[in-house]
């Protein structure tokens, strides 16, 4: 979820509640005010009618009118309640309109100077009130919607403007590569926080670049320091083996030392490769075809292990292409293939299936199911095979973690590794 969407989401929820409460309160208040006004005018009217009645008792005791009607009739003293005016809403059938109309009624009692009690009922049509309420209600809804939309747009605009430096930084970080020279971060800003962030990021990237350089240097030095003495030893042994005075027994000893040294060279190279992968020193990428790489490697391995008489089924259900470093892609596939061959049994079987987004390889073997948790650890040799350096799967793991490829191991009588590409 993007920051802007997150902010708007967080903003709209309380906004919705506040606006709703506000709209409801406003509506109720207006309604109350209208009732108040009606009551006031009814009361005014009451004053006028009573005053008229008291001066002129012959006045008509009721007046039918569409807008305002009144009605006076005499009541018993015991029924009279002079203290209170009673207001209430009601409806009345209007002949002209031929329908019920809403009215508001004021009922009050009064006493004339000759001690007669009367009840006065005044009714006024509240048709306008209904209209008014409707208009107010619609206006509130419209205002509410317009307001929410405006707030969201303003938020979006202000957000975009204030957080522009943040997006500049993100863009810069995205393009930042440890093995490429650093481009200066051009991000002028008046905001103090962003300025601090700019400086912190430049500092951090300078530091990591220099650390990366140092580490790379160290790796090269280790490589140099170890490879040179190994080269000396191996070459001296080779010179020694050319000596015609060497007996067969001595040659055999030389051969076994030679083999051990070659094994050390191999392990050293694998370790250096692992470190180089983890230091992201294989940065150049291109669009490679896993199908082609597999095809090429399969032929080589078939020749090398022809003695094992392994049946190989290569099924290409789709074309698998991936943007990655070409040599790493080769190392990845070759390592998986090599595993399938060296841990296989005589007359065994290897099945390779490629789809548009996955590479599956399974092999028969004399070894039981492997322990998933330790499978990718360095120097983990679960099969006890002497030909294995124990680094193959660690190298595979480090390659796939750069490229967001997932690996899954399962055992169904055969050892199966599935690579899933994004």
């Amino acid at each position, binding site marked *: 979820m993007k920051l802007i969407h997150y902010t708007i989401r967080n903003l709209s929820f309380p906004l919705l509640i506040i606006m709703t409460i506000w709209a409801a309160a406003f509506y109720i208040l207006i309604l109350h005010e209208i009732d108040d006004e009606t009551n006031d005018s009814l009361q005014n009217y009451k004053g006028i009618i009573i005053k008229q009645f008291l001066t002129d008792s012959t006045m008509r005791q009721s007046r039918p009118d569409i807008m305002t009607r009144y009605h006076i009739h005499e009541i018993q003293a015991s029924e009279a309640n002079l203290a209170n005016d009673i207001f209430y809403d009601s409806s009345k059938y209007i002949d002209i309109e031929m329908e019920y109309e809403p009215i508001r009624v004021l009922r009050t009692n009064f006493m004339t100077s000759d001690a007669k009690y009367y009840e006065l009922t005044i009714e006024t049509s509240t048709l306008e009130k209904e209209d008014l309420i409707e208009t107010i209600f619609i206006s509130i809804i419209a205002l509410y919607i317009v307001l929410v939309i405006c707030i969201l747009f303003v938020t979006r605009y202000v957000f975009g403007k204030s957080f522009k430096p943040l997006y500049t930084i993100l863009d810069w970080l995205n393009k930042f590569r440890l093995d490429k020279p650093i481009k200066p971060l051009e991000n002028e800003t008046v905001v103090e926080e962003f300025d601090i962030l700019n400086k912190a990021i430049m500092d951090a990237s300078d530091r990591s670049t220099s650390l990366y350089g140092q580490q790379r240097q160290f790796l090269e030095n280790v490589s140099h320091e170890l490879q040179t003495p190994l080269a000396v030893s191996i070459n001296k042994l080779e010179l020694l083996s050319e000596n015609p005075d060497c007996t067969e027994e001595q040659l055999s000893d030389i*051969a076994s030392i030679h083999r051990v040294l070659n094994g050390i060279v191999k392990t050293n190279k694998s370790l250096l490769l692992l470190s180089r992968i983890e230091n992201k020193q294989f940065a150049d990428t291109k669009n490679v075809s896993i199908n082609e790489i597999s095809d090429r490697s399969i032929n080589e391995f078939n020749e090398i292990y022809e003695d094992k008489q392994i049946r190989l089924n290569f099924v290409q259900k789709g074309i698998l292409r991936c943007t990655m470093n070409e040599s790493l892609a080769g190392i990845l596939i070759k390592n998986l293939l090599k595993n399938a061959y060296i841990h296989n049994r005589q007359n065994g079987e290897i099945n390779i299936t490629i789809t548009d987004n996955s590479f599956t390889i399974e092999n028969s073997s004399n070894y039981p199911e492997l322990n998933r948790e330790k499978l990718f650890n360095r120097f983990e040799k679960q099969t006890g095979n002497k030909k294995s350096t124990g680094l193959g799967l660690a190298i595979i793991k480090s390659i796939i973690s750069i490229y967001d490829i997932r690996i899954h191991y399962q055992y169904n009588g055969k050892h199966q590794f599935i690579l899933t590409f994004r």
Partner: protein
Amino acid sequence: MKLLVVEDEDSLRDTIIRSLEKERYVVEYAADYHEALLKINDYDYDCVVLDIMLPGGSGLSLLEELKTLRKKESVIIISAKDSIEDKVTGLDLGADDYLTKPFHLAELHARIKSIIRRKQQEGEMNIALSNITVYPDRHVVYIDNKEITLNRKEFDLLYYFVTNPNRLISKSALAESIWGDYIDQADSYDFIYSQVKNLRKKIKTAGAMPEIKAVYGFGYKMIIDE
């Protein structure tokens, strides 16, 4: 043939020189950048075996120096740096080949021979050893002027033997030269064994004078009687 070995590690340099002298090359050496710079300025060599990390400067600057001097020396870089960028830089600067340490002496000989041959023979190059003639570019082999058919790996093996006559070659050197660095050499020994056996049979049937001899546990040797 006059060669210059530029290498700061004494015992490695010594081994390389001894091995090259066996091939009857005239070998001179330099142990650091300045010594090497003086030698390439003052003398002409057929081939320079050049280490990159040297006291006093980089081997790559020596390459540049050779270029500015417009010298025709062939250069083989030997370096402990095993990265593609370094190889590309070296080859771009005019080196003819790049070997990563540690290497097998047989491999170094094969590369030097191939470079010198390329330089000497304009047009099609071939390597003749007794009655065997190998055309590396076309991948064909003649024995007594009669062409014999070899598969690709057998051809690679024969080429390696022919460039290293009378030299004991380890199985791992053979495996590396055929498969490259990456494939586990120990696993390919069985393959080497059966391929060498086939090759031996084929050239023997065709009447080749040189003979491939197995040396127990170590490797093979191509023997020619002189």
